[in-house]
């Protein structure tokens, strides 16, 4: 699990974990949907239990990609300019090239078919048992981010960002490593500059 510290955002602590061989994606997803409906104290408890960002790892090209989305989300929150309800949903919004929140959650969030998940928790201080809480929700094996390389679905990423015809990629066609580095650079930069893209 990775942990990031940001003193400039009121000493926020961000925990990021990667899960492989996830078997209960459908259950997690319905849990999230249900939690929004339960009213009262029980609802609050359930909502807090799953208060994480669940991201399908297939669409993440690198840790930098994730870090950039997290930073932009933290920035929006600090400036009172969240586009979605929570910091966790904001990270999902930041990852998507368009402004459509539903699309962002549908594309980048946990789907019934997800077998690899990234779980993120943003907090104001170091929570002692984040790892346990994550493992309680996700049925799968927590792995290091070295494994992310094998999980990335580059063709879907290129499709979402409409990069199939770009000159930069035509130049390095055939050299997979270089092509992935270029795509990674483009989408990291896109996430960072989303607010000024239009």
């Amino acid at each position: 699990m990775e942990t990031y510290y940001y003193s400039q955002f009121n000493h926020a602590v961000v925990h990021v974990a990667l899960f492989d061989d996830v078997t209960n994606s459908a259950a997690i997803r319905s849990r999230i949907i249900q939690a929004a409906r339960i009213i009262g104290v029980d609802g609050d408890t359930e909502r807090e239990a799953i208060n994480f960002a669940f991201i399908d790892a297939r669409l993440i090209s690198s840790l930098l990609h994730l870090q950039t989305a997290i930073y932009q989300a933290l920035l929006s929150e600090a400036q009172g300019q969240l586009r979605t309800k929570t910091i966790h949903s904001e990270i999902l919004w930041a990852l998507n090239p368009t402004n459509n929140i539903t699309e962002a959650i549908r594309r980048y969030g946990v789907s019934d078919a997800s077998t690899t998940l990234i779980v993120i928790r943003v907090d104001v201080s170091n929570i002692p048992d984040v790892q346990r809480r994550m493992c309680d929700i996700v049925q799968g094996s927590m792995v290091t981010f070295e494994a992310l390389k094998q999980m990335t679905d580059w063709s879907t990423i290129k499709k979402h960002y409409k990069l199939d015809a770009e000159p930069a990629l035509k130049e390095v066609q055939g050299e997979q490593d270089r092509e992935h580095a270029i795509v990674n650079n483009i989408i990291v930069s896109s996430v960072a500059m989303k607010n000024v893209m239009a």
Partner: protein
Amino acid sequence: MSPTQQLLQSADLISQGAEAAIYKAYLRQLPTSGQAKNVGSDSPCHEVLEPVLLKYRFHKRYRHPSLDTSLTRQRIAGESRALMRCMKSGVNVPGIRMVDVNEGVLGIEWIEGKSVRQLLPGGAELEDIDELEEMDEVEDTDATDALVEYGVSRDALMDMIGVEIAKMHSSDVIHGDLTTSNMMLKEKTRDLILIDFGLAYYSTLVEDKAVDLYVLERAFASTHPDSEPLFSGVLAAYEKRMGKNWVPIKRRLDDVRLRGRKRSMVG
């Protein structure tokens, strides 16, 4: 204090221009020993924190405040879009890492290396705040040694410059401030990187591309001794890369050269 202001406070000031101040910063911090207590054993501190370059377009008091905000916003957007255009076209430029339009800060990928100005003779001058503090004797041989150290010949360097500018112009991006200070040789990969797209814009006009090249020609001449062979090396590589589009640009460049200051148009 806003988060970005806090970030700037902890950053190292590298240089200050009329429009912006440049800093080296880290977007996040390593845990202090107090925080590390709760970190699990499988959380390695292996990751070296990557620095970023912060371009801070500070508030200009001589401008009307709403104009200032609007202009700064436009400039950041313009610079980001030019960089993105270049990235998609295969031009070597730094990536974008963070954008805060409200505070006027653009975070760019940190490029470790030297500028082409520093690598060529005549260019190793006292231009940075760091260098001003050193006040050592600077000789031309220092510059040549740096290039040798990088293992790149002067001809190869000019070739790379020509190719990158050609790629950029082919995607109709005009740099607007082409000088040897705005080109860097990346230490790790020996790639030539074009930087500082603050004055960049989109244009299909041959005139704009010719002027872009002319600005570089003048920059070469005014900064580096015996620059003519250097610049013709750049143009040769540019021509080769541009193909048939070179002809109209060359013609325009000749016209532009004839304009300029102290050039008599009297036949």
